[in-house]
């Protein structure tokens, strides 16, 4: 149940991001929307790894080695999400760098202004 709520949240965040990519004209907003899509995916990844009544897969006083397989949540999505976040950050950085250059080239951030090549 819990994870379904989180998962749905992730999906909704993705949808918001998608709508933003398609509806907003401002390049910065499009970039924000793209990273929203990424964030939604990250939420979803974490939700996928959840196991009912599970806890973080870190062996400490609260979780012994023996009971870990029964109580830990799936560690794989948690590991993957780190990678995914870093990649998302990397992509956003590149996008922003290009946004700066685009603004320099035409002094506007409206995506409609950047349709130089077509057909």
């Amino acid at each position, binding site marked *: 149940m819990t994870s379904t709520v989180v998962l749905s949240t992730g999906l909704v965040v*993705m949808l918001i991001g*998608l709508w933003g*990519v*398609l509806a907003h*004209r401002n*390049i910065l907003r*499009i970039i924000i929307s*793209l990273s929203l*899509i*990424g964030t939604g*995916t990250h939420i*979803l*990844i974490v939700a*996928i790894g959840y196991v009912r009544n599970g806890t973080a897969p870190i062996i400490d006083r609260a979780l012994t080695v023996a009971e870990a397989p029964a109580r830990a949540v*799936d560690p*794989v*999505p948690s590991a*993957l999400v780190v*990678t*995914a976040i870093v*990649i998302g950050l*990397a*992509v956003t950085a*590149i*996008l922003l760098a*290009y*946004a700066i*250059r*685009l603004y320099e*080239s*035409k002094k506007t951030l409206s*995506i*409609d202004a*950047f*349709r*130089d*090549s*077509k*057909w």
Partner: protein
Amino acid sequence: MVDALLHPLNIFIIGLGGAFLIPLLYRLGRAAIAAGVVLALAAMTLLSGVALWRLSHGAAPIEILTGGARPPLAINLRLGLPEAIFAFGVNLFALLGVPYILREKYGTILLYLLIVMGIQGMVMTRDLFNLFVFLEIVSIATYGLLSLRDTPAALSATFKYLTATVLASSFFLLGTMLIYAVTGLLNIDDLIASRASIAGPIGFAGLIFVLACLLLELKPFPANGWGLDVYETARSDVAAMISGGVSAGVFFALLKLLPLFESQLTLIATLGAITFVCSNLIGLRQTRTQRLLGYSSIGQMALLTLAASLLHGPGAERMTLLVIGGLFVNHLFAKVGLFWLAGHVGEARLRDWPALAGRPGAIAVFGILIAAISGLPPFPGFFAKWQLVMTLASDGRLAWIAVILVGSLLEAAYMFRWFGRSVHGTAEAQTSAKGPVGLLPIWGMAILLVAGGCISGSLAGLASPWIVAPLAAGAALCLLWNLPARIQGIIALAIVLVGGLWLVRDLSGLNRLFAVILLAGGLVVSIGCLYRADPRPGFYPLLAVMLLSLPALPRTTTNLEFFFVWELITLSSYFLILLRREARPYALRYLLFSLVAAFFLLAGFAMMQALTGISSLAAFRAAGPDAAPVFILLAIGFLIKAGAVGVHVWLPGAYAEADDDVSALLSAVISKAAIFGLLVGTYVAIRSELGLDLARLLGWIGMLTTLVAAMLAVRQDDIKRMLAYSSMSQLGYIVAAIALMSHLGWVTALYLVANHLMVKGILFLAAAVIILRTGTRMLSGLGGLARPMPLTFAAAAIAIVAMSGLPPLAGFGGKWLLLSAMIEKGWYGPALMTLLATFVGLIYMARFMQTIFFGARGAATATAGEAPIAILVSQYLLIAGILIMSFFPILLIEPVSKAIDPQFASTLVWQGMSLELIYATWNPVPTMTFAVAVSILLLGLFLLMQRSGHVGMGARGTSFYEFSGSIFAALTPPLAIRFWGDVSAATASAAERARKLYTGNGQTYNLYVLYYVLVLYAFGGGVRLIWTGIP
């Protein structure tokens, strides 16, 4: 130890470690970076090359483990044979392309190294999430490299590319995680093994999202505007990297995940087909080089996708490897080479490309790349397409073959149009092209293509060394490029003579006859080529390829060999035609119709092989009655090449506008290749029950061609056009003779072949002389040349008599044989048409002789002298042939008859008429008397008309010809021209409409991307899933 050093894991260690080292090397200086990156790339190339070598010699796929654990726990990679091909190809191209980036900032070099590593990671990894990581490595490196060009257009294109690919990779991540949610697995092998458990809404959506990302990264129509913009605006070496490298990685990822998408295979193939056809269609309307190449790249990737999804299945691994490997290698090297060439030439617009003119080296490499990309021999794409079509035919998937061939034709159309326009310079061109050193990497690509072609040729079963003899001769002659033209020519003819004799040495029967006729005819007519002393770069190498291919054609024993040589003839003759600037549009038309013809042949061969399971041409003799469609396909193909009426529109232009000596070769010699093909193809019809009706149709087509072409010839004012239509007309007789499918018919056909070869050789060479000496080719400007050039006049007169069917020369015998054969079969209609056509033929031939050689001397003919010695030698050798054939017909007919015998002896078509009887009916007095009577009658008719004022002999004889010309004009409306014009206009307007999809707005492109995902979901089975899933 050595094995450890050669382990492919080191590719990644070198790639990553090398990239991390570059900032440190930067502190040591530029030279250190250059050395480092070259070393790293060379090492990666070496590693993948060694692996490829071992794998191709039967070694087991190399497992690459990481993290000190076995696969499901840790990430593993695998280097099998397909992976090694891709990796080695990418490494080679990266190594050759390194000069383009060495002068950039070190950040660029680092990205370059990492993108090469990342592509190989995508190729080798067996972990779904690791695939995502490598996909991102490749994408981000691309984003960085794209910044090398920072015009406003390039920046906005990059931004569109960025948003679209980020969207796509978001779907990949989402899909990966959804698949993980269902299966708990990330290892691709495990996922494939437990494919059945990836079900339900989540698993299905996961699969579709992953598939969507991979397809989107391959830039499918119509969700690919962002990709095209980048291809157009990026620096050419970066565009090459995207087209060759990045796409390769993505495609391979798709290939290895394909077992997961088994229920979507048809959908993938359909989408690939749509992209392949549409992108090549739109390519027709492009005016900018790199965008054109972009459309072509997308088309090639779609073809790869199409092939991969169609071939997918158990037991198809080897075929998949051959087809996919061949297509990939071909695309990689050719497209990368073309992109580099675009960068080298530096002209963004296609119409600026004549800057290349006057640089034979650049044009040669350009031609190689264009031929390769269009799937012509001897390059890997040719063999790959061949095998793809063969496999599809054996599965009975004929519609897919049609799609592939249509798309290929469109691609060849714009590629060769581009090439044709670039070869001849304009006055103001010769601007910005750089020195020849920059061509070195591009030559590297060309050489790799040739090497790849050799390998895939031998894999495809093309093992005989003689098959490449024409190409070897051409290549050898290329080395003599700086010798004077005539010396080159003599060497070329010597090589052809030696090579040709070697080729025909152990042939027998009909094949030997044809080989000897084609070789001897080609050599003799080619002597005429020596009259030109001006350097024509590439002429003699191409001539050698063509002349050696002609006798090689009868030598072929398998359908692949035949098709290979056939395409060589097409290609070399196209290049020869293109040598003359004015021939440009006609050369393109020639090539396109030749390719259509070739594709019909390909389809026919494929069906034949599917029917009989034999790749040998002997299959034609053993074909059963179900081979009728094969016969139809082959007959259409050969008829197009023979210039049958309706599909003849390529012929007059190509024959008339090519260089004068090339025209002679085309008409006299090359056209006979189609006749040989038709003979081979007709074997099929002989055996099939439908065959006889079809043969009758063929006969009618032949006679109609003869008649229409003769009428058209009368109307021409241009000598060469008149001769071109005359060739078409004569070919019609031959087609009709073959269609008779009787012993007598075939003897006639061969007799006519030899006759026409010699006659048309003489006449076209005469035309060449006239044009050379007078500077005009219009009948209206000529006249009275008999006196200044008596030898030419004599030669032409003999040729005309031999062609017209007047006794006593060979043409008479041919006509007589033809009529006898037709009467024998009861074909009275065609026989009547033969007579009619002969009469019409007489009109234009008389006009030809009369206008040129008699009457008042035209303005242009005042200073004319006798023909050059080379042409006279050639002509009089041919005349010797005519005389021998006329007076000793037995010398030709007996071997012909013997050669045909074995084939007909086994059939029942030959209705017992003996050879002696033929001679008996031909030689006696009544025959001769009848012939003379007819001639006298015709002459009388002619004189009568002249006296009654219809024909003014003295007044240049124009009014009669105008009169008859106008009648024939009414009888032959330009239906074919109009039809083909409409076809081409319709294609162009379809392309124009399709490209309006690309609005240039990045947001619209994102919308397309999203809709693409939705369509994939819906047609991949999602509608049913939602329908049943949500009651």
